[in-house]
């Protein structure tokens, strides 16, 4: 067994996290920053942080991930990292010529107490920031929240660029949350279909699912531009997709730029996508074209066609709050039973939301969102109450193999399969893909396990 030391008996753990269902803030900030056109993320800390984040994102996307580091030494960590950051900013603009540098902190620089705004301001004054170029920042202490928090913080950092001219631009800000490049592309496609002009940020499409063409573009086409972000202050409103990932930035725009906002779920599955499309068409005062109804109907059609195969199948999930909430609603909406859920990102509100979404199930689900809500606990729950399917990131494959349960890879990070870069799981088309994946997992298992006498040709 790969996880041979995991006992079925659950003992209280208050200090030791085993096989976490989260990672730290900075990588979230780095991913978000990559959704900004011409941006070089910068990690203000030891060079190991940056190396780890770049490696993880590279494995997930199979794409180059460029980011700078302040390369703290012992000295810097005693006397502060200002000198390192100033030097880094100068070198980065000179050597790599980005349009923006997005600096995030680390547990190290946070513990020291480096003051980013002040340092960046100093860099500006010292002429280390070429005119027209920007340095944005986010405080991302690794010992608070999770990678999700870091993502949200950097998105807020982007929102800080918003300016209000007093003239509305007729657009809707859409903050997609931590979804894949393909998802961001799909959200843009869907909005365009509906006929709603949007400003999407961050937007990693085209950046983290790039082509192989013989040239290496450190700053590919794609990503939200500085001017778009500035204009976000003039938008008619903001749709924040996901409380954990997107709400803070949306509320900032509301408070600082008087751009009203609404927090929706990430449009994963039928109902959440319905709400997103409905919001778009009402805000933009357009009527939804047949094409969208057609896509929607296709998803409903597949649900009805294959219902018998996923009906009341039990699922264990690990992931991030916004994604798990949307996925849970989707699963329940098609009569599946999310049974065990963990996220390392703390939040009682998450647990409550999941309980509400699963209220109709014949039993109470296991759900936890805190330090001890890790894959070790999830595995123990599964040993006690087996499930038919696992949904989560690549680390679940160890449980999947030990317990012989099919796994649908979804979430972050996916280190051992491809496809998530190119095919969305948001929107109606995303729903079709998710259903296809779930069905493939369940039906492959059925084909493997059915006795010969009931081996089915037609399913």
């Amino acid at each position: 067994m790969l996880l041979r030391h995991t006992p079925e008996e659950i003992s209280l753990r208050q200090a030791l996290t085993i096989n976490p269902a989260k990672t730290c803030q900075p990588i979230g900030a780095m991913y978000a920053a990559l959704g900004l056109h011409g941006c070089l993320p910068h990690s203000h800390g030891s060079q190991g942080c940056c190396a780890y984040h770049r490696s993880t994102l590279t494995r997930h996307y199979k794409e180059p991930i460029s980011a700078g580091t302040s390369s703290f030494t012992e000295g810097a960590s005693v006397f502060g990292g200002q000198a390192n950051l100033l030097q880094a900013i100068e070198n980065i603009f000179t050597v790599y010529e980005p349009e923006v540098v997005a600096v995030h902190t680390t547990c190290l620089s946070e513990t020291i107490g480096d003051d980013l705004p002040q340092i960046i301001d100093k860099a500006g004054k010292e002429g280390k920031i070429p005119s027209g170029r920007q340095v944005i920042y986010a405080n991302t202490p690794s010992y608070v929240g999770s990678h999700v928090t870091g993502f949200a913080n950097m998105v807020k950092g982007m929102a800080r660029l918003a300016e209000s001219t007093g003239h509305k631009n007729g657009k809707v800000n859409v903050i997609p949350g931590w979804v894949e490049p393909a998802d961001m592309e799909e959200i843009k496609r869907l909005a365009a279909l509906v006929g709603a002009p949007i400003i999407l940020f961050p937007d990693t499409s085209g950046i983290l699912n790039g082509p192989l063409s013989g040239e290496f573009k450190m700053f590919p086409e794609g990503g939200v531009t500085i001017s778009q972000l500035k204009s976000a202050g003039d938008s008619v409103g903001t749709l924040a997709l996901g409380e954990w990932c997107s709400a803070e930035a949306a509320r900032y725009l509301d408070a600082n730029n008087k751009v009203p906002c609404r927090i929706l779920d990430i449009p994963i599955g039928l109902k959440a996508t319905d709400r997103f499309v409905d919001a778009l068409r009402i805000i933009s005062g357009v009527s939804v074209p047949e094409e969208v109804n057609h896509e929607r109907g296709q998803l409903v059609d597949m649900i009805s066609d294959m219902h018998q195969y996923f009906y009341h199948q039990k699922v264990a999930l690990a992931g991030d709050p916004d994604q798990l909430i949307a996925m849970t609603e989707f699963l329940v909406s098609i009569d599946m039973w999310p049974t065990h859920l963990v996220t390392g990102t703390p939040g009682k509100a998450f647990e409550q939301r999941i309980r509400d979404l699963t209220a109709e199930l014949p039993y109470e689900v296991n759900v936890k969102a805190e330090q001890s809500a890790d894959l070790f606990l999830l595995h123990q729950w599964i040993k006690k109450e087996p499930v038919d399917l696992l949904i989560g990131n690549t680390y679940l494959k160890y449980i999947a193999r030990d317990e012989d349960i099919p796994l649908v890879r979804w979430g972050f990070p996916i280190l051992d399969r491809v496809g998530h870069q190119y095919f969305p799981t948001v929107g109606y088309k995303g729903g079709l893909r998710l259903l296809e994946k779930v069905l493939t997992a369940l039906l492959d298992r059925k084909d493997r396990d059915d006795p010969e006498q009931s081996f089915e040709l037609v399913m």
Partner: protein
Amino acid sequence: MPATEEKLVRLDPAEIKEEMLRKYPPKVARRRAKQILINEALENSTPEITANVRTIPGIITMRGCTYAGCKGVIMGPTRDIVNITHGPIGCGFYSWLTRRNQTDASAPGAENYMTYCFSTDMQDKDIIFGGEKKLEAAIQEAYDLFHPKGIAVFATCPVGLIGDDIHAVAAKMKNKLGDCNVFAFSCEGYKGVSQSAGHHIANNQVFRHLVGLNDQGRPGQYRISLLGEYNIGGDGFEIDRILTKCGITNVATFSGNSSYDQFTSAHTADLNAVMCHRSINYVADMLEIKYGIPWIKVNFIGAGAAAKSLRKIAQYFGEQALMDRVEEVIAEEMPAVEAVAAEVRPRTEGKTAMLFVGGSRAHHYQELFKELGMRTISAGYEFAHRDDYEGRQVLPGLKVDADSRNIEEIEVEPDQSRYSPRKSEEEIKALAEAGLQLKKYDGMIPGMESGTLVIDDLNQYEAEKMVEMLKPDIFCAGIKEKFSVQKLGIPMKQLHSYDSGGPYAGFKGAISFYREIDRLVNSKVWGYLKAPWQENPELSASYVWE
């Protein structure tokens, strides 16, 4: 490969170096210039390079941190020690199963914690009020759950700053638990200038807390330990296969496929064979001083190198039976190797490679490329020191800078009860005269052609520049470099993780490496970079109907 030849002829290395430096701010250019060396075949000295110095902030380096070198590289491969990361969750998460150091835990009842990630997951209150209590509780929880032989604690950046005394906590818990060896590593990420510091910190603690505890080492006639072999992709398995076949007993591997008991009995070996000089040469020295075990540098990367290393080991023990057996084994293994080499060479001959990785691989792997008829036109290390480039003769002269000064050097002296020199002064002299120099390593540079570029701590910008100018047929580095290089249409081979390949060590490893390089440099995909309409955009010719 003619195309490349040409380029090499056309582009003078000095121009290339200049071009790489041109864009840098003057201060950066000055510093980098010292780390970019144009190899010249000097009479009987080796040109000097600057290494093991700080990476310049903002420069996109390949390097990681001290924690990565300590927890990830050195301690990661040991299956039966519970490794607890004391810090915020990230460091533990990123070092969780991300190196391919394989382990064989198939023995009945064998422990294996390598699939687990243990962390104290420090929260803000721990940073503010200190994390010792939580660490203590975490150790207790780990012990209650698993009752391991050993628990290791690894400090991340904030730990040092907030002043948690992890060693005191470890000592206290070791004492409290009784049957569990608890020890800690002050491997905060900001220490040193690269992973290298982490290797040193790790090895010191292994030497201090584990080596020498157990005098019942694995029995055998010719007993050696393998130092600096991490069993990436199963390299260690292949080396062990060969050693066993030769009748040589591997008492302990530092630290590939290792177990607690291997470390504790390592002092009972009669020879230490050092693979990765960078990460562990000082341990070899300590083992010699304290226990009297001589060491030799070996290299099992490359069939020829592997054979050579086996002969060195046999020569060290000096018994004819062993020497004969070694020759038999080599004779048995080589035909398969040569057959594949012969098959592949026509497709690799004359092609060029660049290697930028680790502290020894950039050197070792040149052997394998040679066997494929490929030339290494540029190479460098990520975290090595001058001795790894130039040879150990430079060691005495190395000046200790601010960053190195903080990395502990253990003072060792002969162990009262356990010191016993395996070879006498005379024997050692005799071996030297017979051509077997102990504790000798000449480094990477002497083996490289004149005019090649040796670059320390290569960064993304320089890599891109150089690849564009020299268009190598293959580029070797790590995961962070893989795709920026491949976007340029140049196949890239990871020599940290081997992508998902390996083993590449020993004889079978050589075969799989030959095939892998054949696959990479001859993959059809590199011919697909441009679409037909990009190659012939003109529309002049109207469409040709049937």
